[in-house]
C-alpha cells in the first residue's frame, strides 16, 4: 500500500513535530511513508472564509499531488474534513467536471491519522509509552464531520503509562473556527474560557487533540494564564516510546522530537 503524508500547510510551517511523529509511528509499524513535496494547502482557510474561487487552484494541486496513492493521511481532522466534504463543492464552483472526477477519486482515500491507524491499518496499540496525566479534546471536525468517534481514545488507552482523564463538556467547541477567532474574537474568547476551565478541572498536565489549530487556540489561552498545561497532538503522544519519552517531556514546544 502506498501511503502519502499530507502534512497540511499549518503543521508543515508551525508544528513540524506533528507530521514527523506521524512518520515515526507509521515507520515503527513497518510502513513506508512518502511525502510528495508538491503539496501545499487543502484550501480550508479560503473556503471557510468565503474565498471559494481562490481555493480552486489549491484543490487542483491537491488532487494532482495525491492522485497516485492508496491512502493519504493527514494529522488534522479539519483539513481531512475540508477535502472529503468540501473539495467536491469547490470543483462545482469551478464548473470543471474533470476536477470533480479527480476529487471523487482522491477525496475518499484521505484519512485522518486515527482513522488510518484503526480502520485502514487495523491497529490500536502502536507501542507508545507516555507516563503523563492526559485529557483529550475531540475537535469539532473530527467528532461531527468525520465522526472519528472513540478511535483516538482507543489509541490513547493503549498507550503504556498514560493516565487518561475524561474532559468535562468535551464535545463543546473551543471557539477557534479559523478566521472566526479573529472576526468574532470576543465570542471566541468567551468560548475558549470555558474550555480552559474544563481542562484545568481535570488536573491534566497535557491536553491532547487531533488538530493543532484547536490546540494552538486552547494552548494559547492556557499559556496566557500560565496554567501549567501543555498541548500535544495525538500523533506526538503515539510517537513517544520508553527511552525517548523522558527526553521529550523536558523540551519546549518549539524543539523537535529527538
Amino acid at each position, binding site marked *: 500500500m502506498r501511503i502519502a503524508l499530507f502534512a497540511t500547510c499549518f503543521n508543515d510551517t508551525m508544528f513540524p513535530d506533528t507530521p*514527523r511523529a506521524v512518520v515515526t509511528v507509521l515507520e515503527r509499524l513497518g510502513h513506508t511513508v512518502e511525502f510528495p513535496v508538491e503539496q501545499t*494547502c487543502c484550501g480550508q482557510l479560503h473556503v471557510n472564509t468565503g474565498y471559494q474561487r481562490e481555493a480552486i487552484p489549491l484543490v487542483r494541486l491537491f488532487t494532482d499531488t495525491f492522485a497516485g496513492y492508496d491512502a493519504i493521511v493527514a494529522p488534522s481532522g479539519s483539513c481531512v474534513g475540508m477535502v472529503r466534504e468540501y473539495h467536491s463543492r469547490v470543483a462545482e464552483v469551478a464548473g470543471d467536471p474533470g476536477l470533480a472526477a479527480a476529487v471523487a477519486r482522491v477525496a475518499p482515500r484521505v484519512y485522518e491519522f486515527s482513522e488510518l491507524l484503526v480502520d485502514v491499518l487495523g491497529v490500536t496499540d502502536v507501542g507508545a509509552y507516555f507516563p503523563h496525566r492526559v485529557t483529550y479534546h475531540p475537535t*469539532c471536525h473530527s467528532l*461531527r464531520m468525520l465522526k472519528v468517534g472513540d478511535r483516538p481514545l482507543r489509541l490513547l488507552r493503549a498507550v503504556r503509562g498514560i493516565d487518561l482523564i475524561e474532559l468535562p463538556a468535551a464535545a463543546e467547541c473551543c471557539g477557534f473556527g479559523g478566521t472566526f477567532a479573529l472576526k*468574532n474574537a470576543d465570542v471566541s*474568547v468567551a468560548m475558549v474560557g470555558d474550555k480552559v476551565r474544563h481542562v484545568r478541572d481535570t488536573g491534566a498536565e497535557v491536553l491532547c487533540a487531533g488538530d493543532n489549530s484547536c490546540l494552538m487556540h486552547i494552548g494559547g489561552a492556557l499559556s496566557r494564564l500560565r496554567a501549567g498545561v501543555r498541548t500535544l497532538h495525538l500523533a506526538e503522544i503515539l510517537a513517544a516510546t520508553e527511552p525517548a519519552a523522558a527526553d521529550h517531556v523536558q523540551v519546549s514546544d*518549539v524543539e523537535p522530537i529527538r
Partner: protein
Amino acid sequence: MTATFLGTPAFPEAAKRALQDTQLRANLAHATATIRSKRAVVVGERPDWEELRLAGEALKDQVLRHLDTYLVQLEEKVTAAGGTVHWARDAAEANRIVVDLVRATGETEVVKVKSMATQETDLNGALETAGISAWETDLAELIVQLGHDQPSHILVPAIHRNRAEIREIFLAEMGKVGEPAPPDLPAEPRALAEAARRHLRQKFLRAKVGISGANFAVAETGSLVVVESEGNGRMCLTLPETLISVVGIEKVVPTFADLEVFLQLLPRSSTGERMNPYTSIWTGVTPGDGPQAFHLVLVDNGRTTSLADPVGRQALRCIRCSACLNVCPVYERTGGHAYGSVYPGPIGAILTPQLRGIESEIDKSLPYASSLCGACFEVCPVRIDIPEVLVHLRARVVDAERGGVPSAEELAMRSAAWMFGDHRRLESAQRAAGLGGRLFRRGRIGRLPFPFSKWTDARDAPVPPAESFRAWWRRTRGTRR
C-alpha cells in the same frame, strides 16, 4: 423582514455588548443547558431517531421540489372547506391583507397565538399603525410584548429574562393594557403564570378575531396544524369568530400521514417532550363550531429566492424547533438579539441573509457568526447542514464585494492563495517565518500588531519553528519523496 431590528450593528459588535451582560449570560446558560439535556433524554429514547430525521428531510425536500403543486392543492382544499386563501409576495403585502381583513370585521383588537411568520412581517407593528391592538397570548411572547422588548429565541422568546425580571415587567405593565398583576406578586413560576392567565382570560373572552401561524399545512386535506404547550393557542383558534392564519409557503406537507413524522420530530427537538400538550388541527370552517370565517395568508417574503439557491434552499426545511439555538455555543453566550432578526442562532444566521439579502452590515456578518462546530447540524430534526450553508453564504458575501477596491482581507486571501499555489513559494515563506521566529525567545508570543492583536489580546501565539517539516524531510530523507 421586520423593521424593528434594522440598525442592529454587525454581529461582532452586537455580540460584544451582549457578552458583557452577566445577567443575560447566566439566564441563557441555565435555560439552554436545561432544554439541551431534556432533548437529549427524549431523543435518546428513540432507536429510530436517525430514520425519523431522514424521513423528515426527504419529505421536506419533496415539498420544496414540488412546492407549486402542493400550494395549489392546499388552496383548493382550504377553499373547498370554506376558507379563503390569500397570497402575499412580501411582508408589506401580508400585513396589508391582514389589516384589511381585521378592518372588515369592524374590530379594533385581536388575540394572537405565537407565530414566527407574523414576527417576521412585524404584523403587530402594522396593526398598531392601523389602530388595532394585537394581544400576544403565549406566556413568553406576552413577556416580550409587555416589556417592549424583542424576542431572542424561536421557542422561548423571553429566554433572556429570569423570573425576577418577569415579575417586574408584569407589575409595571399589565395594568396599563388590561387586568393588572396582583401587587404582592411573588417571583414564583406558578404565581407568574397565574397572573398571566388572569390577564389573558379577559382578552380571550372578548376577542372576535384570532391571528395565528401554523406549524404545518396539509396539502391533501387543507388542514392546518398548530402545536403548543399552554392552551392559549387552542383558545385563539376556537373562541373568535374570525381566524386569520399567516403561514410561510414552505410550511406545506403533502399528506395527513406525513404528520406522523413531524409530530414525533418537533416536540422532542423543541421542548424536549415526547408530545406537546396541545395539538390543534382544523380544516376550513365547521358550521356552528369554532370560527365561522377562516383566512389563510400564504407568505413568500424571500422564500422563493432561497428556493432558487441549490445549497441555501435546505434552510426552508426548517420546522422552527430551535434545537440548533439550544446547542449553539455562540448563541448560548450572545443570546438572540445580537443576530438582529426574529430568527436568531444558527438557523437565523442562514435564513435571515437569504430572506433579507446581504446588503446591511448585520446581514453580511451573520454567515460569519459561527465557528462551524457543527453541533446545530447534529441535532437538526430535518438535517439542515447549517455549516455547509454558512460557508456557501460566506462565498456569496465575498463574491458580492468583489470588483471594487479590494479589502485588506481580500488582498491577504489572494496573496495566501498565490503562496499556496506552488510549494516553492510556500517554502520561501516558511524560511522567512523560521528566520522571524528566531527573533523571539523560544516559547510563545504575547503581543502582535492588528489584526493579529485580535488573537493575542487574550491568547498567546506560537513561535514559528526554525525548520519546517518539509525542510526536515529534505535534510534527513534527501530527494526521496
